[in-house]
């Protein structure tokens, strides 16, 4: 029976069919659903959210050494965090199969950069598979475990947004019963001290040569002969675009992109007149072809930036002009993402903007505080960076600068990698103020629990990290808690803490408006007789408050009734629909 499955859902299915026993991950778009589906659908797999990708991979490595088939999933930038264990796990190899699913985000739908995982995998000397639709997601996930165990190596399965987040038909298979392998102490393989690591590096290089041979033989790589004038080498989603644009051409479809199947590529190249490589992001396959001395067209025609499409390929490869489509002349306002109505972050950023502070920001929904009208955030680099950067600004510009600077970081992000920055501030005598936006969830990736919520991925209660005690334990004496919807109190606390001559942490506590247990009292409206059109409420950047030119009104379809606007309105113009004065 065929089922319509999200690429990530199909990965989870493949992991299940392969008999995996342990999964650990940190959420990150577009990889999050892999672990969510494992947790939701396959009780027999132990599954957890780890505090960050490095820990997640270490858990998976441990499970593999312990004899289980193990997986780990993350987004491309998560692999940077997990790079340390990855590079050495390549030396230790595995016991039970170890597969790492990494989702790249060409076009940056929901990311801060556009890096190409294949380059990191090559640097780590770890083989890479690249599925191009949901069926392959499932099949390659299974195959990856076979390769991992056969060649004693971690395997990366690289996805991109359009594969991870597209649904396609999948033929389901049976679950394979894979027994736990025995664990045997083997320091020569698992203790990477110099003497042992030198021997293992030799094993890694030999393994790469073996994998190269495998790449030539495996059915993951296949030739589809068509018109021999044009030969296209493609993998992943680029294969689908190329197939749609150049259906008659001959294709070398690569499912295993590292190591490259050199013999197969030479054989293909020799039988076509013009050779093209079509791949999003970096010229990975193309560089491989060039090192082999092949004449090939790739990035001279197609960009290293953004996503591809069939139209782009027709235009660049076939020289077909794009049709003109601007049928209606009109200035269309952009619609950037915004904080939701009722979002707890809105109150905090309203205050930060009012105080005109320099704000080092971090990764999460609250990054949207960089946009008008809140305009509050000055920087956003990576998970946890807000804390270290605030400290760096102080060390560069002195204590006066620290009095005008705060770091903002979400609860989950703080656990991920903010805590180490805070230790740095304390240890090195900084005076920065760190605001933890504790909304009781991991918001942007779709509401995952984390150590600070006290709930596991499967919804069980567990010991909750006490953020106040945690900050106190690393040496922050000034830890304050505020409700970001109490604007006066929040402002007072921030003023006091930035002025303090020691490190402080403010925990801005209010749950995400989208959480199920969050209830508001219902939509508001504006009494136009009372409204003086001072536009103070417009400064909140609430999508539910709109200026109709003649009057300001509340969109009842969007307003949740969080009442934040009532706190900035000096004319008491907001009232609850259907009575009960707000």
């Amino acid at each position: 029976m065929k089922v319509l499955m999200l690429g990530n859902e199909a990965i989870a299915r493949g992991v299940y069919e392969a008999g995996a026993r342990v999964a650990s991950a940190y959420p990150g778009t577009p990889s999050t659903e892999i672990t969510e589906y494992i947790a939701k659908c396959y009780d027999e797999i132990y599954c957890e959210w780890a505090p960050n990708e490095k820990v997640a991979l270490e858990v998976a490595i441990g499970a593999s050494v312990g004899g289980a088939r193990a997986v780990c999933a993350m987004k491309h930038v998560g692999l940077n965090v997990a790079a340390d264990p990855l590079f050495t796990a390549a030396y230790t190899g595995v016991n039970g199969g170890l597969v790492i699913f990494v989702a790249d985000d060409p076009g940056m739908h929901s990311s801060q950069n556009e890096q190409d995982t294949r380059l990191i995998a090559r640097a780590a000397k770890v083989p890479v598979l690249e599925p191009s639709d949901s069926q392959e997601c499932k099949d390659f996930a299974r195959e990856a475990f076979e390769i991992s165990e056969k060649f004693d190596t971690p395997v990366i399965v690289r996805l991109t947004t359009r594969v991870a987040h597209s649904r396609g038909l999948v033929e389901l298979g049976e679950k394979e019963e894979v027994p736990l392998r025995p664990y045997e102490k083997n320091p020569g393989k698992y203790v990477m001290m110099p003497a042992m690591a030198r021997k293992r590096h030799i094993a890694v290089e030999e393994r790469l040569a073996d994998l190269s041979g495998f790449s030539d033989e495996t059915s993951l790589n296949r030739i589809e002969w068509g018109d021999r004038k044009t030969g296209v080498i493609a993998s992943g989603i680029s294969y689908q675009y190329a197939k749609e644009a150049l259906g008659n051409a001959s294709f070398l479809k690569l499912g295993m992109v590292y190591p490259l199947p050199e013999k197969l590529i030479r054989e293909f190249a020799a039988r076509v007149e013009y050779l093209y490589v079509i791949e999003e992001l970096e010229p990975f396959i193309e560089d491989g072809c060039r090192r082999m001395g092949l004449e090939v067209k790739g990035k001279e025609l197609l960009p290293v930036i953004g996503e591809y499409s069939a139209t782009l390929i027709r235009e660049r490869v076939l020289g077909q002009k794009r049709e003109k489509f601007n049928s209606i002349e009109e200035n269309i306002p952009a619609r950037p993402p915004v904080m939701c109505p009722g979002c707890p972050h809105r109150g905090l950023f309203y205050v930060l903007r009012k105080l005109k502070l320099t704000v080092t920001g971090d990764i999460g929904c609250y990054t949207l505080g960089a946009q008008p009208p809140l305009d509050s955030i000055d920087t956003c680099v990576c998970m946890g960076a807000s804390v270290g950067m605030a400290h760096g600004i102080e060390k560069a510009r002195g204590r006066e600068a620290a009095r005008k600077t705060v770091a903002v970081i979400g609860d989950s992000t703080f656990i991920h990698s903010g805590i180490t920055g805070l230790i740095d501030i304390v240890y090195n005598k900084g005076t920065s103020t760190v605001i933890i936006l504790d909304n009781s969830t991991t918001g942007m990736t779709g509401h995952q629990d984390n150590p600070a919520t006290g709930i596991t991925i499967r919804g069980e209660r567990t010991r909750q990290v006490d953020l106040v005690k945690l900050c106190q334990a690393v040496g922050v004496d000034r830890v304050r808690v505020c409700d970001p919807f109490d604007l006066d109190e929040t402002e007072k606390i921030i003023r006091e803490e930035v002025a303090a001559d020691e490190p402080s942490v403010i925990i801005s506590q209010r749950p995400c408006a989208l959480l199920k247990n969050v209830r508001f009292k219902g939509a508001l409206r504006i009494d136009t007789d009372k409204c003086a059109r001072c536009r103070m409420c417009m400064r909140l950047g609430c999508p539910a408050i709109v200026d109709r030119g003649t009057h300001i009104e509340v969109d009842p379809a969007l307003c949740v009734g969080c009442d934040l606007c009532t706190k900035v309105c000096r004319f008491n113009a907001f009232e609850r629909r259907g009575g009960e004065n707000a």
Partner: protein
Amino acid sequence: MRSTSVMIVGVGGQGTLLTSKILGNVGISTGADVKVSEVHGMSQRGGSVVTYVKMGEKVYSPIIEKGEADILLCFEELEALRWIDYAKKDASIIINTQRIDPMPVITGKARYPENIIDKIRAEYRNVIAVPALEIASSCGSIKAANVVMIGVLARRTDVPEDIWLDAIRRTVKPQFVELNTEAFRKGYNLQPSV
């Protein structure tokens, strides 16, 4: 089902993911190859969102490009205008008559275009305006507006009504089946003539 490309456009949070799931399930019921491409993550937070549903004998790219959509299902007027170039000239363009101001309009940096549906009608012959919020509200919840829209769309395909209703039953939570069935029927019967 004949080869069909449906684009669903709207504002993050309007229920486009459920809509594409139902459409995908309908595609499978007809024996077609189906691909659905969705937007998750940051773009979902009140941003412009687009979902592609492609059905046919064999679907390669999950993406629909300019001039390729047979049906443009628009959950919001400005989004209809933003994505209109993706519709074929004879496409069914189904527009929910809801207006959600984007932040540049709210902050006064930009103006919300006027008479959007008239402007689209001037260029495209098959435009259906649907007061989906009102219809859904009359069924009991404005959250069913997406299923009202599916009802309107269903009438413009060659797939029988019961296949649609079955897909809805299989996709929505059991407690919402009744509400959504009524919402679908009201959409389906909105304009009996195609």
